[in-house]
């Protein structure tokens, strides 16, 4: 690599009266210019170039005073890119409907969508940009629990509320609670408890797990199996477990190893593209012949759309918290309206995350109008204890941990020739929200001690 090297050309001559001598200034084609002229010109140029940005900034700021800005953060790229897309779609539908109904406090809603690429540092930067640069009034979304936990820490200094609509890590509302975070989606504790209550009715004794080796995987398995163990002391938790990386495409050896350990039932916390891969590979190896599968997110709508008939029957799931055909009894009309509107707008059935994000926007509107402002402190006060109406069910945001409490249903897959993906979730058993949510005392105790939950001892080989 050779470059012309000017090192070694040491320039020693210097004029004592350089200040007043006309010297050729490099880069200006040898025109004789005094230094003063040159400086004046540069300063003028600088001012000229900077001026439009000042003007633009002022105009933009004036214009920006009008709309209510909502920052949507989702994983638009990576293994779970579909989840980011549905987050954006749910928010879009809500924003359009809200604007058609007059906006929030008479002002139109404007969405600014950013991609966190399922990476905590990217998500943090995006959140910062949304607040400091785009001046959003509130943040909504976040699919990946690792990203959530990272953004959580920035919220106090950014002084904005984040309404979580997907990531379920319970740590966010328990050990790492901070008052700026509200979640309108069930968390891993609630999903686990509901799942365990559901699973306890089946005769399976030997249990194992395949889950991604980060917060979401650990908490989903831990909360599920610890409750199940309490309900059914006779079960055996195998020490052969599979903890692949989030986004790693090949599960064949994990599947082989698990199969050799001969479990009766396996919990899967894989989601998105990982769930697609897992189910397909499980099918290839006939893994599910004789082994039951329980999974909150592996049967969310994106997997069904991707795999269709490749999804076996009799898999157990809560479809990540919302099955579009089965709203809570009493909510049929509201749900039907929502599903039809969503289908008309996007041409597909609503994913659970779209459902939650849609609701988050409406809850934000509700809280802002109750408070009379979008100011963060007032928003927090209004959101605490807020009764939230989802299309599919009703719930409320608990004051102490800002976690939504709503009823949840688990069911099993069955053939559905009438649906484009040929599978539906049926035999849904509803569990009362209060029954599946840890008590306030438990939550506060864990928050104070900062301890990790007990159930980490059930995680082996992660």
């Amino acid at each position, binding site marked *: *690599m*050779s*470059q*012309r*090297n*000017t090192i070694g*050309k040491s*320039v020693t*001559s*210097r*004029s004592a009266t*350089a200040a007043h001598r006309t*010297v*050729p*200034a*490099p*880069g*200006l*084609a*040898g025109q004789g210019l005094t*230094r003063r002229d040159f*400086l004046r010109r*540069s*300063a003028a*140029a*600088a*001012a*000229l*170039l*900077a001026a439009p940005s000042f003007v633009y900034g002022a105009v933009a700021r004036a214009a920006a005073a009008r709309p209510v800005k909502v920052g949507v953060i989702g994983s*638009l*790229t990576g293994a779970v890119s579909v989840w980011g897309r549905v987050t954006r779609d749910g928010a879009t539908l809500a924003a359009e409907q809200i604007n058609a109904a007059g906006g929030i406090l008479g002002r139109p809603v404007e969405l600014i969508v*950013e*991609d966190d690429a399922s*990476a*905590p*540092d990217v998500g*943090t930067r995006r959140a*910062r*940009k949304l607040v*400091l*640069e785009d001046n959003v009034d509130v943040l909504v979304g976040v699919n990946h629990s*690792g990203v959530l*936990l*990272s953004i959580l*820490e*920035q919220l106090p*200094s950014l002084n904005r509320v984040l309404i979580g609509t997907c990531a379920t890590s319970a740590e966010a509302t328990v050990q790492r609670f901070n008052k700026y975070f509200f979640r309108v989606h069930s968390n891993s504790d609630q999903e686990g408890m509901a799942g365990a209550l559901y699973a306890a009715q089946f005769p399976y004794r030997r249990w194992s797990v395949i889950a991604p*080796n*980060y*917060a979401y995987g650990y908490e989903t398995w831990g909360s599920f199996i610890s409750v199940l163990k309490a309900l059914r002391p006779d079960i055996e938790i195998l020490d052969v477990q599979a903890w692949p*990386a*989030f986004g790693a495409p090949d599960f064949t050896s994990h599947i082989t190893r698990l199969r050799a350990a001969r479990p009766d039932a396996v919990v899967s916390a894989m989601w998105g593209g990982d769930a697609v891969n897992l189910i397909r590979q499980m099918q290839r190896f006939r893994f599910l012949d004789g082994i039951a599968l329980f999974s909150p997110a592996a049967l969310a709508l994106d997997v069904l759309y991707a795999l269709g008939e490749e999804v076996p029957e009799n898999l157990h799931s809560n479809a990540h918290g919302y099955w579009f055909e089965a709203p809570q009894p009493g909510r049929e009309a509201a749900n039907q309206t929502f599903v039809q509107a969503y289908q008309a707008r996007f041409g597909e059935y609503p994913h659970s995350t779209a459902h939650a994000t849609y609701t988050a926007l409406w809850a934000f509107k509700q809280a802002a109008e109750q408070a009379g402002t979008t100011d963060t402190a007032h928003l927090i006060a209004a959101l605490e204890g807020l009764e939230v109406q989802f299309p599919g069910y009703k719930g409320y945001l608990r004051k102490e941990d800002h976690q939504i409490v709503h009823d949840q249903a688990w069911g099993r897959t069955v053939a559905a020739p009438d649906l484009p993906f040929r599978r539906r979730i049926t035999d849904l058993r509803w569990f009362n929200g209060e029954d599946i949510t840890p008590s306030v005392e438990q939550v506060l105790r864990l928050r104070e001690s900062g301890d990790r939950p007990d159930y980490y001892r059930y995680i082996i080989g*992660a």
Partner: protein
Amino acid sequence: MTVDRNGWTWLALVAAAALLPLGLREFHVHLLTEILILGLFAAAFNLLFGYTGLLSFGQAAYFAIGAYACGLWLKGPWPSLPLGLLLGAIAAGAAALAVGFLCVRRDEIYFAMVTLACGQLIFVALWRWRDVTGGSDGIGGIPRPPLDLGAAALNLAPTLHFYYFTLAVAAAALYVLWRITRSPLGLTLRAVRDNHRRVDYLGVGMARYRLAAFGVSGAFCGLAGALFAPYQGTITPALANWMWSAEPVMMTLLGGPGVFAGPLLGAALITLLKDFVASATEYWPLLVGTAVVLLVLFLPGGVGGAVRDLVVRWKPAGGLAIRPEGPAAGRLAKARAGAPAAAEAHGAREEAI
């Protein structure tokens, strides 16, 4: 104490950088802080690439080691930022020496591959050693402990304060790096770059010099990482991944490996572009990839190199480069933010030092 013209230029640049944030919003100050940290990272990389002729695709591993060492220290019982930075640099430098030992005798392609492999090994270790490093979730809540300045303590939580702290550290580190490139060691490294066999024949022991460069580069990459940890607050194993290793490569290529300020310039350009462009399009890799291809094919000296070539052509025939000294240089540097003509002049001046 006499300060020569180089010293004045440095002081002027630092002064300009110190004045820059006063008209800007908080978000831009964040960007400036990142530019400084990444600029240091890229300059450390360039010590290996531009000055020693070694392409390392694994420098991110040392950045990450620095970040984790500092982050873990700051979360421990005696959080002290200067100590954390020192630890980060030392840990990263030690790791670099260990890896360098394996590969400094290899030729360019093998060297690149070994650095990549070892970088990935460190990535896997950070990722899998969950008990210490927090696994794929990384380490969060890294504090910015107040800086004890003797008479008072400087609170580093505000963005602006941390920017000034970063500026002080980065400027000092860059100055040290710059002095190294001007020292006999730096000249020997350039000789190694130009013809390492000949250097060996002359009995100079090129492997030792390469190892020294690798260790120094690693240590400064670690220092950049150690600054990054309290800046970002959260660090993950992705900081050791080879995509992050590619950042200083791109920045150096864009800014120009033949100019000391090149990597810093590249860091500024890429960070600003990323922020500006990322909002407009999600196809950032396409832009960067195209830029890399075009740069390699047509402009291997990067922006800095092109500027310097232009300037050399325009210099008067005596070969004299006379530059205004003192406050004028500072003003010129400040104007660089808005005036491309002055930027060219600055670029030229920087290299001719």
